[in-house]
């Protein structure tokens, strides 16, 4: 049913830490790998001149120029935010798109999807991509086939992207529980919503990069470059400096 539930028991989602993310793209690969063997995520012409394919997670890189000081490079992972008021769900004509009452995960039932693409139009965050081979819509499942999967060792029962991240920039948990790790992270670090004015109420939150503890005026290599000359070279340096 494409009516949104008024309340979900849990609010499962991700916290993405823009402070620690180094943009290594490991989550992109892990997500693609896991979901390709699970639900299938086709590529078109993967080794050709114009490769293309469906991915459920993409990592952008932005340059941000603060009012003062030098610019910062920020890697920015983007996947479905499992919005509470998900605009992608009610537009679906077939009932293929739905939000689960038990945990708030937004899913697509591929057997019912006609591939009209309207849900991708309705999502502000570009979280849905059409599988060109299957003709159905794909999106992040929050790795629903891992997090409840008793065939996996306990430490693997979390999303593939979270499990693989080498800097632990992605955290998985229940936002409905104020004592969960993700809720605490959001409270401590000022986790925020993307495009909050669109009133989608995203479940996933982003942690802003921490403030630099010192101004970054010169190159980080500067101390190494400032080599004090000694001996004859030092004497020459002093003499030449005085002329």
């Amino acid at each position, binding site marked *: *049913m*494409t*009516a949104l539930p008024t309340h979900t028991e849990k609010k499962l989602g991700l916290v993405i830490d823009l402070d620690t993310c180094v943009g290594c793209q490991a989550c*992109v690969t892990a997500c693609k790998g896991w979901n390709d063997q699970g639900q299938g995520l086709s590529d078109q012409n993967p080794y050709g001149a114009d*490769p*293309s*394919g*469906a*991915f459920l997670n*993409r*990592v*952008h*890189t*932005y*340059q*941000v*120029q603060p009012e003062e000081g030098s610019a*910062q*490079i*920020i890697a920015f992972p*983007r996947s479905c935010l499992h919005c509470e008021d998900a*605009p992608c*769900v*009610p*537009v*679906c*004509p*077939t*009932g*293929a798109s739905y939000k689960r009452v038990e945990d708030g995960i937004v899913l697509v039932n591929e057997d*019912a*999807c*006609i*591939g*009209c*693409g*309207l849900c*991708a*139009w*309705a*999502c*502000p*965050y*570009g979280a849905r*991509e*059409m*599988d*060109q081979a*299957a*003709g*159905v*819509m794909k999106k992040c499942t929050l790795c629903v086939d891992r997090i409840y999967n008793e065939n996996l060792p306990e430490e693997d029962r979390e999303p593939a992207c979270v499990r693989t991240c080498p800097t632990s920039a992605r955290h998985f948990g229940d936002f409905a529980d104020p004592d969960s790790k993700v809720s605490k992270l959001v409270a401590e670090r000022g986790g*925020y*919503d*993307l*495009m*909050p*004015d*669109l009133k989608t109420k995203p479940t996933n939150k982003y942690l*802003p990069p921490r403030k630099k503890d010192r101004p970054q005026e010169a190159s980080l290599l500067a101390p190494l470059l400032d080599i004090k000359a000694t001996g004859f070279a030092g004497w020459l340096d002093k003499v030449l400096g005085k002329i």
Partner: protein
Amino acid sequence: MHPAASVIAFTVLSGMGFGLLAFLGLGLPAPEGWMAFFHWGLGYALAVGGLSASTLHLGNPQRALKAFSQWQTSWLSREAWAAVATLLVFAPMALSDIFGLGLPRLIGQLGAVLAVLTVFTTSMIYAQLKTVPRWNTPITQGLFFSFMLAGGSILSGNGKIALIGCALTAAALLAAFAIGDKAFGKAAQTIGTATGLNRIGAVKVFEQPHTSPNYLMREMIHIVARKHADKLRLIALGFSCVLPFLLLLLPASPALYAVTATIHVIGALTARWLFFAEAEHVVGLYYGQR
């Protein structure tokens, strides 16, 4: 947004078709025999042809029947219901006109109301999208309705109403251009709010997340042909409204209506192409493109 030929053809042809059917339903005109067959046939052909063109862009058209299930929430599902209901309700009226059965006009009037509803549901599919600010205004409904009125009245030979229809369409197009050009700015979403990094400073793309375009970029970002937008706006306005308006002032004849209808369709297709090509989706912000 990517201007898909199938969707442009569908919305223009079915809009005109439902317009023509509405006028026939109202008995304006009320032809008999073969003339009735020809008129109703044209209306059905356009409406049904348009609807089937729309299934061309589906990934799995064989499941299209499932699209009837979510009428409570989805405008696309409501459109499917409204279209089928309209075509069914008109059927006895069409047969009555063709074979002179003398069924009450009320059936046709009910069908006309449903036809307007159908075009309204089509327009809502676009107008509901907050992600595409240019569409997210009541002008969108106005555009679809005025094109239905102009196209339907020209095809049914209602000269006076067609003059009004052309004038209304011109007004709607001009309003859509003027309001639409400001819509994205008014929605106030930027690369800064999309990433939330506006809390640090001015954001720009440093590197794209992938090397060649993906589904999102192909579907939602359409920059290529916008550079001719001004010329195309003039063509849309001239062919869909101004020229038909002038032609309709000449002494009426079937040939004149045929020419007028052809010119109007060219203008309407151009206008609908622009409707898509000029519409910018907020997801483009993540790519620094619109």
